């Protein structure tokens, strides 16, 4: 059953050195606060999975938490490269980084297959694509009816998935709405799941019957962290901080400026700092 716990306890009790971990979010609802807590707890040798690793993975990599990254697009959206990712991959700083690279379609299908309890996903993909030649986890099957060759990738089954969502109710059920990405699949594919939320409400009586709701018994921990997706956003709560995404590029470009920023903004503060980083759009917030 879901436990409402502190962010510190949620990470300490569910994330372990060497884990395969997905902090998902497709531009929207990226779990920054939870990522910072992982950094503060100095988790090591993590394998990070995400379709679109952005600044939070740059930060985890730059702080030496990461052994390997599995991804399909690793950049700062609309801005450019992930400087810390490149420094780790190209120069081995602060430690060498392995990568496993897929296409979005492959990752989306692999999460879907993970949620569905299958060992692999099949799809029509990677036709003529270079990745199929360099990634041994891209294979194929033949359709037993038409003979068509279809791409196959292993399903994604993280040890832990961490997501940020809009709301939990008192029972610990979680609502995600708007751009829902692969979060439901990432949670259901994982052995353990942690969710940070903007708000805890009494019930979901006013929610659409087919909304994306994760029942409490599919989750290990639910934590309220207001603003916990900043500089990403939470539909209905606050907008994306595009200025921060742009500002990150010079911060991350040098090792020293990166470390100093992390010291001031991650290591020396706690999750409560997030609420003050966003401008809540909802009057009632």
């Amino acid at each position, binding site marked *: 059953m879901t436990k409402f716990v502190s962010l510190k306890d949620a990470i300490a009790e569910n994330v372990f050195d060497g884990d395969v971990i997905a902090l998902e979010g*497709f*531009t*929207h609802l990226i779990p920054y606060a939870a990522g910072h807590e992982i950094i503060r707890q100095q988790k090591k040798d993590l394998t990070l999975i995400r*379709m*679109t690793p952005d600044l939070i993975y740059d930060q985890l990599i730059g702080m030496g938490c990461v052994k390997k990254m599995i*991804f*399909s*697009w*690793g*950049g700062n*959206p*609309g801005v450019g*490269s*992930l400087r810390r*990712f*490149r420094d780790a*991959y*190209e120069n081995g700083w602060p430690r060498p980084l392995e990568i496993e*690279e897929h*296409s*979005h*379609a492959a990752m*989306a*299908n692999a*999460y*879907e297959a993970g949620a569905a309890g299958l060992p692999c996903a099949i*799809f*029509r*993909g*990677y*036709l*003529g*694509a*270079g*990745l199929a030649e*360099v990634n041994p986890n891209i294979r194929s099957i033949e359709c037993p009816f038409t003979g*068509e060759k279809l791409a196959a990738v292993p399903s994604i089954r993280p040890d832990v998935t961490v997501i940020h969502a809009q709301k939990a109710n008192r029972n610990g059920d979680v609502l995600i709405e*708007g*751009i*829902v*990405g*692969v979060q*439901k*699949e990432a949670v259901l594919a994982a052995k353990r799941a942690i969710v940070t939320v903007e708000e805890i409400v009494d019930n979901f009586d006013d929610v659409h019957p087919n909304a*994306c709701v994760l029942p409490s018994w599919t989750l290990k921990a639910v934590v309220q962290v207001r603003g916990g997706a900043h500089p990403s*956003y939470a*539909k209905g709560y606050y*907008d*994306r*901080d*595009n*200025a921060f*995404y742009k500002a990150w590029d010079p911060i991350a470009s040098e090792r020293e400026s990166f470390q100093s920023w992390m010291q001031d903004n991650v290591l020396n503060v706690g999750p409560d700092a997030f609420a003050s980083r966003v401008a809540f759009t909802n009057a009632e917030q």
Partner: protein
Amino acid sequence: MNYTPTEMMTVAAARAIRNDDVCFVGIGMPSAACNLARLTHAPDVTLIYESGTIGTKPDVLPLSIGDGELCDTAVTTVAVPEMFRYWLQGGRISVGFLGAAQLDKFGNLNTTVVGGDYHHPKVRLPGGGGAPEIATSCGEIFIVMKQSKRGFVENIDFMTSLGHGKTGKEREALGVKTKGPSRLTTDLCIMETDPDTREFVVTSIHPGVTREQIRDNTGWAVRFAEQVVETPAPNEIELGALRALNERTARAHAGQ
């Protein structure tokens, strides 16, 4: 009216979009071109962003592929696995837009690594994202890209997404049924795909641009069609709509 090369490129790219198209839209130039088309000659065009937003009509251009504006103005927003399975792989997209760090004359694209080899690159780029399957699942591919010798190369360093392959014949060989890259719009000209060789051929040159300029900014031996026309300059309606869109966008993003 005066206009910039980027405005010419955006307007030229927008004109190719038809009212009944279903477009898989990437961020940046494709997004500007698609929304300009929607605001001018193609009001019913369906725009789909890979974040799951279907039939979106943003009032301002999104900065990221998943800005809230896209969801708020969409007919519906679906999960990303559904987007790639039912909508892209399902064959429902008529036009996909792609750009790249490197492009060759067959429309093969590289957004993965530059220099060295895949495992030891000189520059590690963000990667392909949706491109490998966009390239083969959409009815046809429109490429929009500023022209330069660095980007328009004889041989790309990595085949992130298939155009017409290394010889122009790979799509048929692989059983790919979609058309692939059919149109390349740059800040200098429009190239279209030769139906036989599948090479890009310049078919329209933007006003004031010379053949020399196009050659100087292309890493392969450029071919010009027998009949090359001059691209009509952006008209008042097009420029007005584009500038208003850009102004709204700048205002909205500054306000954040």
